[in-house]
């Protein structure tokens, strides 16, 4: 059991993803820019978590805020209907 445990200790580190907004300073977070906001939401309209998108904390915070603002003014859906 102990041996098995040792074997499994070899951890695979996921490739460190880079924050898109840090890498490209011309990419600004704006609640009016639907192209960018849509890219960071699922089909259902949910915000994609940081662990998947690779955004840094600062930009994820700004992005979340922008998406929520866009939702308030009906540019983005709170919940999107998916067609099956």
């Amino acid at each position, binding site marked *: 059991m102990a041996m098995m445990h040792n074997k499994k200790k070899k*951890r695979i580190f*996921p490739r460190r*993803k880079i924050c898109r907004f840090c890498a490209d300073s011309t990419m600004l977070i704006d609640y009016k820019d639907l192209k960018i906001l849509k890219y960071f939401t699922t089909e259902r309209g949910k915000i994609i978590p940081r662990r998947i998108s690779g955004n840094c904390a600062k930009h994820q915070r700004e992005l979340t805020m922008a998406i929520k603002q866009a939702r308030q003014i009906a540019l983005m859906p*709170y919940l999107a209907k998916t067609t099956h």
Partner: protein
Amino acid sequence: MRRYEVLYIVHPDLTDEETKAVSDRYSDLVTAQKGTIIKVEDWGRRRLAYEINKQDKGSYILIDFYGPGSMIKEIERNFRIDDKVLKYLTVKTRDPFDPSMLEKEMEEKARPESLISPEEAEETPEKPAEEPAAEPAAEKEPEEGE
């Protein structure tokens, strides 16, 4: 001085002229409240992401302006009374705002456009990187369980 942006939705049943009248009314209101308008954008009729007052379309109008913070209260009060306006959103874009910053911004705006195109092209191959990322995360979980 603070810089604001107000985006509001006008009822879709109004004619273009009536919509323009509503837009002018609010522009005048901003000026009357000692605000200075930087620009007014008419986005035209768009589909709303969800229904508001049984309407699934609306005309979006954006006003970009700067002025004292106290004016917002009066503007929003008017939006709330007006039933031609379905919804509004006020966003503070810069605080404090110095009107002299505006000139600098205009200069900068003219420049970066040439920068955008090469970097956008670079971004496309990055897209598939998202999917393999999900896998290592899934592999990790059973490890932690033991």
